[in-house]
């Protein structure tokens, strides 16, 4: 699709970018990418990425979901695999493989006031750390981040802990960075999850 027709499609309303090529790219980008020889070592750059991950955690914890969604590119993917090796979302069910529209569906649903799984709402605090950055080997302009995350979630009567690591793919936008793909790998992603209704 050329950029003119693509511009005619608002990814919040219609889904034209989730193509076979996109699936192929996403699988390639998220395969064998944490390579020492491509690590970003520049302290200032690393600090920028660490701040991005921290901001994201703060926005999600503070229920500023719309602001968080604005950190993601218009044509973004929010992906939580259901298999421990990530799997191939073309061939298998994932916990979540949202495009922009479905991500906005997710936020819309939580805002309806009728999402019983979030009534009462969860309170969360995220601890993010071990942030490392790598230069994408498919595109030297793009960056890949790996960070670890612990989500403490209090709802109703109990606090539980969800653990995993996050992979972000970033590209430059107006002097900063936007998230094109966010993959969350829960350590228990292939086990039965209780009430996975907050944005993780």
């Amino acid at each position, binding site marked *: 699709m050329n950029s003119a027709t693509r511009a005619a*499609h608002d990814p919040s*309303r*219609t*889904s*034209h*970018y*989730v*193509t*076979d090529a996109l*699936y192929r790219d996403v699988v390639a980008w998220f395969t064998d990418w944490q390579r020492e020889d491509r690590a970003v070592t520049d302290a200032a750059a690393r600090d920028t990425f660490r701040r991005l991950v921290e901001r994201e955690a703060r926005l999600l914890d503070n229920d500023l979901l719309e602001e968080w969604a604005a950190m993601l590119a218009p044509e973004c*993917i929010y992906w939580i695999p*259901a*298999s421990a090796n990530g*799997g191939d*979302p*073309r*061939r*298998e*069910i*994932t*916990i*979540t*493989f*949202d*495009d922009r*529209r*479905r991500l906005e*569906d*997710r936020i*819309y*649903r*939580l805002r*309806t*006031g*009728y*999402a*019983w*799984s979030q*009534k009462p709402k969860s309170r969360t605090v995220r601890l993010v750390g071990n942030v490392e950055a790598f230069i994408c080997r498919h595109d030297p302009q793009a960056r890949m981040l790996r960070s670890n995350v612990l989500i403490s979630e209090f709802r109703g009567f109990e606090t539980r802990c969800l653990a995993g690591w996050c992979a972000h793919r970033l590209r430059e936008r107006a002097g900063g960075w936007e998230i094109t793909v966010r993959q969350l790998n829960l350590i228990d992603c*292939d*086990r*039965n*999850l*209780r*009430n*996975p*209704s907050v944005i993780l």
Partner: protein
Amino acid sequence: MLEKIRTAPAPIVRPNAAYDYDELVQEDRVHQLIYTDPAIFTAEMTHVFGATWVYLAHESQIPKPDDFFTTRLGLRPIIMVRDAQGQVRALFNRCTHRGTTLCRLERGSARMFRCPYHGWAFLNSGKLQTVPWRDGYACDFDDPKFNVAQVPRVESYRGFIFGTLNMAAMPLTDYLGPISGPIDEWLDRHPGGRVVIREANRLMYRGNWKLAYDNSSDGYHVIFSHRSLLETENRLAEEGDKGMSFYKGRPDDAPMYVAYMGNGHHFKDKRPNIEKRPGALWEIEGAAPGTEHVEGELRRKLGARALEALDLCASEPVNINVFPNLSILGNHIQVIEPLSVDTTNTTWYGTAVVDEAGIWGDAIHDINALRMRTQEQFPNFGEVDDLANFEEIQRGLAAQEDEWVYMHRGLGVPGRIRVADNGVITAPATDEVFMREYIKEWRRLMRTPPQLSIRREP
């Protein structure tokens, strides 16, 4: 070799008193204890998950000889295996020496299971093959008692594999009875009449397993429990007619219906709400990642046949519930797995279309990729709210002096419920007749002393 199992005749709950199940299950209501009492749960693990046919696995999870997949029959750990000869077996995942599980992997391929504890090794037929330092034993290891126990009856219906410990259980096809009609229709909408499992949306809730089985044909809860989903899936739709919209207004006036199909099975059929023509299903499918792109691709590649292909991406509007633990919902194969009286897994296996004859060409990849995304919608935006409500039922039932749970919607309303010659009972979509009927079958099983057996290779 068959071994009869001694089973406690009835759950002993108070000293010297067994439950009177006629008291607990009445015409219009059931007692809260059937959801909350650990003794009843324990009894269910033999009376129901043991004495009747229980869904164990789909054949696509063990396609080749030596493939295995670990699961449970009730609480019993089970290795589903296609042995070296191609025979499907349900082995107890329990070493005959000191009882440890033999296999700790979720799935794989193995000719032999070697016990990690003292190294006894068993063929995947269950037969004991080697014992380390055999000369330290005086016994005869050819005695079948050392072979792994297995479920004595394992049968498949068109890829759905069931097992029972009850040698007197009726043949599986008789057990399924009329519910095999909807199963056939569900399969036959796919090329070759089959599907394969491709991973799962795995959920769990802190509530009794029957809360899920009560729910799975319930047309009464939809507009309330799933209100957030209904609003969400229609937020961009011009007509507001996506997904479950036909529950709006008065769902009992719609052509859809619920049915009780005997032996505990129930069925909600929403297909009569939509026209019988290619593309009708696709029109009501909610938006998914890739919807517009794939629709364009399929129309370009397939021309007039595109609508039929798009219907394969869309969710089939049926809830086919096979007692006690299998629900075919939309395109998912959902399995209800009781873990304790108040903990249950519901595992929603995703299904993909197989196109061995190549009728869809390379469009099959587009079809399946989109089908994965349409399947992810309901567990994410719908089921989570039901599970929250099941958990809140379990919490509410702790108010133990308020004893009764009602399932009497439709009972006694003239002209509402119809009984066909084959015994199938149908009623409008929000009727609870299917609950009242299946729970009678549950009551019958709970009153019947289970006759259970296990088998070992000779």
